[in-house]
């Protein structure tokens, strides 16, 4: 397994665009062989990925395939009941199994996260402005009125109107979309180097979504911000991704540069995703409906390839688990993928 992991990582790396940041040689986030389990059930299995400075990695896949758990593992934020093994390196430092102060040296300042459910992710008894101010006070030298000004700047940047008034609102007084923008403002408050965004634009209308994506791109060219972006929306992927990792049932099944993946998907699951994108709207949730069947629950995953029950090309070989192998540009976990040939044999 270790061999496959190394291979896979190599593959994803080789595919990355020339990064914009200064420390171009070292990934800001490097996950290797991550497995998250709840008791005997593995929810996430052997996930490896890495993100270079200034790069955007999109994580896509159906609901329940482990995207959020992967993101939370990266920041050491899993629930107590869950166990993570493998390796997570942030800015070159191993955080898996390290004491909390190790990760706290970067968490909230150099690496921040936007959560999937913004309303629940905000403290209900604190004003939203104060919640953003807390992050600023924790990690910067700013105090008092300077913090307040920064809060209002941030809220304006994420497109919140009447910031003077809205910063004093409690989360329940704001809409889901507004809460999401508060979350985004909070995550960007200390100018992070890595942003992990778990479906950050799902509750937003198209105009605001475009504004947020523009803001992220600006920060990217300005600060060399690296982004892990979880989304269901392939339109957004096409717009912002440098590379894409496709997850299915707790595993990465394909990873590579965005153009390659869109033009020539290799894994049968990715292909199905791309097929149903054509002629479909960008509505979240619609992209996967054309793939017949549903994702198996973590406790009911099949022997061998997790995708086999839904796979149009499955055969006897698929009783064995395919490992993620790379042809240099692309990593694919399918027995039909031949790295040396550079194409899935039909």
């Amino acid at each position, binding site marked *: 397994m270790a061999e496959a992991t190394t291979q896979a990582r190599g593959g994803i790396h080789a595919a990355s665009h020339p990064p914009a940041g200064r420390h171009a040689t070292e990934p800001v986030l490097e996950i290797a062989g991550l497995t998250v389990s709840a008791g005997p059930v593995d929810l996430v299995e052997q996930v490896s990925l890495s993100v270079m400075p200034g790069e955007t990695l999109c994580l896509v896949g159906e609901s329940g395939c482990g995207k959020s758990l992967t993101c939370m593992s990266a920041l050491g*934020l899993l629930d107590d009941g869950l166990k993570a093994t493998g390796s997570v390196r942030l800015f070159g430092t191993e955080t898996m199994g390290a004491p909390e102060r190790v990760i706290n040296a970067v968490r909230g300042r150099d690496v921040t996260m936007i*959560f999937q459910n913004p309303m629940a*992710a905000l403290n*209900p*008894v604190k004003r939203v402005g104060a919640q953003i101010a807390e992050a600023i006070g924790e990690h910067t030298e700013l105090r008092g009125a300077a913090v307040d000004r920064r809060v209002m700047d941030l809220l304006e940047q994420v497109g919140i109107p009447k910031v003077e008034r809205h910063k004093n609102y*409690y989360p*329940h007084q704001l809409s889901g979309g507004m809460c999401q923008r508060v979350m985004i403002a*909070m995550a960007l408050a200390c100018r992070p180097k890595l942003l992990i965004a778990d479906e950050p634009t799902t509750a937003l209308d198209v105009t605001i979504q475009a504004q947020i994506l523009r803001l992220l791109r600006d920060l990217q060219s300005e600060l060399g911000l690296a982004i892990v972006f979880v989304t269901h929306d392939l339109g957004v992927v096409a717009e912002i991704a440098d590379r894409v990792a496709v997850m299915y049932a707790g595993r990465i099944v394909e990873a590579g540069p965005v153009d390659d993946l869109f033009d020539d998907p290799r894994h049968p699951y990715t292909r199905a995703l791309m097929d149903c994108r054509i002629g479909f709207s960008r509505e979240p949730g619609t992209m996967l409906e054309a793939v017949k069947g549903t994702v198996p629950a973590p406790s009911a995953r099949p022997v061998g390839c997790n995708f086999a029950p839904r796979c149009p090309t499955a055969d006897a070989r698929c009783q064995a688990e395919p490992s993620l192998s790379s042809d240099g540009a692309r990593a694919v976990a399918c027995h039909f993928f031949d790295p040396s040939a550079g194409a899935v044999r039909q």
Partner: protein
Amino acid sequence: MNPQFVITKLVRGTLTLLLTVTFVFIVLRASGDPAQIMLSDEASPAAVAAFRERWGLDRSYIEQYLAYLTAIIQGDFGTSFRDGRPALEVVMERVPVTLLLGFTALLITLALGIPSGIMAALFRGRWVDHATMSFTILGHSIPNFFLGIILILVFSMTLRWLPSSGTGSIWHLLMPAVTLGTAAAATVARFTRSSVLDVLHQPFMRTAKAKGIPYDRRILRHALPNAAIPVVTVVGMRIGGLIGGAVTIETVFAWPGVGMLLVNSVNQRDLAVVQAVVLLIALTMVLVNLIVDLTYGWLDPRIELHNRRAAKT
């Protein structure tokens, strides 16, 4: 806090008081001739006549009710036949003694219940948690008066460390206050524990962690303010329990407060005093509830909206 919320609560409290007064009035009238009930058997015919005159007993019930209400609002609860003074005066001079006991018991409740509940939650499944939970089970299952008697047996009779009855020193206060506060502390500890545990699993706690806030400040600034909300309600409810408990405990420890006055007055059929105590307790309960509601509204910004919606529908 929005004014509508405060006004709603005030109106509700006033209505509760009015209901209690009305209820007391009806009970008094329904149980026979008030002159016979309120005055002692040996009362002179002149005194009976004066009583009838004063409460307008020969007029209609509506007029009697209004007269009664007016008198109550003016603080006139009638005269204690036992010592001839106004009933309110008799009761009020006992109030400080009971308040002293009540507040000490409340202090014990909070000082014992809240920290142990928090600790039990933070160290869930460890010995602090087990110890607290065992204590709460004990605190719940032992009736107040029984605990009082046990304490007297141990600390007064056997060890002879503490006085078993009366007032005068802090040593007199100790046993009744502990007895009264223990059961309430058990409830408060249990509620605090479950409230904190619940909050610890909320997504916003994960957000605080992701922001890089260290553990102790996550607990202090994010978990506890949220966990306090249900605890305030329970504490408020337990204050009602403390008032009820004071009656028994004052009797057990011969603590000369309102509770003991009530028991004595019932025994001696000094109904003017009984009536004054009952209405005073009702007033206290309403005030406590009001304070709890206002604290709640202050702690939880969502409550106002909720109440505004409820008020509209």
